[in-house]
């Protein structure tokens, strides 16, 4: 199951050149770019692991790209995304966020069915990698 999320989720995966161009755009807007990774790409999972601190005061995408590659090399089988944070007053939020790596084999989600009070059925989606690791 091919998971899509963030900006450009409707596009095919970006090439390295395209990633660099996007990062360069972010830097030119003055946004702080950061790299994050996770083994749990559930859409409600806001807490991806940080690959180092967000990078401030960079001028060129080469610096960020080095970190992206380092993260990919360390976690070849996890999801890696790039975030760009805009600190302008009034925005103060992530302006751009996109995937730059997905595992070769994506496990997808399994549906968990549990019984709640009064025999109500409750459903939860859980990423298979998470489930099978336990």
């Amino acid at each position, binding site marked *: 199951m091919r998971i899509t999320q963030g900006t450009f989720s409707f596009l095919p995966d970006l090439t390295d050149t395209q990633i660099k*161009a996007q990062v*360069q*755009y972010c830097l030119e807007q003055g946004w702080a770019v950061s790299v994050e990774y996770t083994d749990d790409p559930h859409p409600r999972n806001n807490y991806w692991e940080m690959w180092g601190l967000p*990078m401030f*005061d960079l*001028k*060129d*995408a*080469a*610096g960020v790209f080095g970190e992206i590659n380092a993260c990919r090399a360390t976690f070849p089988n996890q999801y890696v995304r790039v975030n760009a944070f805009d600190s302008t007053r009034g925005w103060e939020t992530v302006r751009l966020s996109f995937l730059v790596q997905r595992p070769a084999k994506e496990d997808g989600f399994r549906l968990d069915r549990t019984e709640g009070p009064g025999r109500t059925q409750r459903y939860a989606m859980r990423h298979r990698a998470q489930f099978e690791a336990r």
Partner: protein
Amino acid sequence: MLDATLSAPSAALPARDADGTLDLGALFTESEVPEFLADLEADLIGLKPVKRRIREIAAHLVIGRARESLGLNAGAPTLHMAFTGNPGTGKTTVALKMAQILHRLGYVRRGHLVSVTRDDLVGQYIGHTAPKTKEILKKAMGGVLFIDEAYYLYRPENERDYGQEAIEILLQVMENQRDDLVVILAGYKDRMDRFFESNPGFRSRIAHHIDFPDYEDDELVAIAKTMAEAADYRFSAEAEQALADYVTARRAQPNFANARSIRNAFDRMRLRQSLRLFDQGGLTDRDALETLTEGDVRASRVFSGGIDAPQPGPVV
């Protein structure tokens, strides 16, 4: 298409004749290089070896384009540099300019300069140095990393000094990411020589060792006049003569630091001029406000035996 935003700004490739010959003269005038070299000549006084090296780099760029258009390999040369010279010979000034120069010539993508010293690269405890150095390198990507007084990175008297770690990371990036940044090391000649002796890796990775010569007397006078002009001052004819005498006298005295001494002297002359006008009171005009007179120059201690001479007046 997307590549266009990433590649260095470069002029259009020159037209190629049917027989595969190129007119280098035309190629040279077509590029921005001649205009740029003229600017450089006007901006920097003296410094012949520096200008010569920049000229070489500029020429190489033009030739590189010519080679590219004929399908020859045109890999960018290594541009890491070491600036050595006495105090005040313009190392830092030229480094600041070099970032713009290399950007205009299309060697670096962004053309900003990150100026650092040992403190910015070397950490205080184990494991602190590598992230610190890498952070600086990331900031310098696409531009120029200027390491002032680079010899402080290496402290032979302490074998556990973290400077060595910073040096190793630097060397690695200088070797592997030559397209991404240019590193300039600067420092006084003798200490830099010792630094390179103990770090042969550095010497071999730096292609350009540029030695900044001391300025001639007339060059220093010209520098003083340029500084004055930039600050909207000018020297009267007599003051200019006094200035020439000042330079000659100052050079013979200790702690002479070329252009830096001249800048300090100029700052003191401005103070003297202000005081003179202030004491004189009454009406003044534009001319008086912008002119430095002979008296402002000659009042310097340099003419009365130098900085070491006893000062008149009570010692408080």
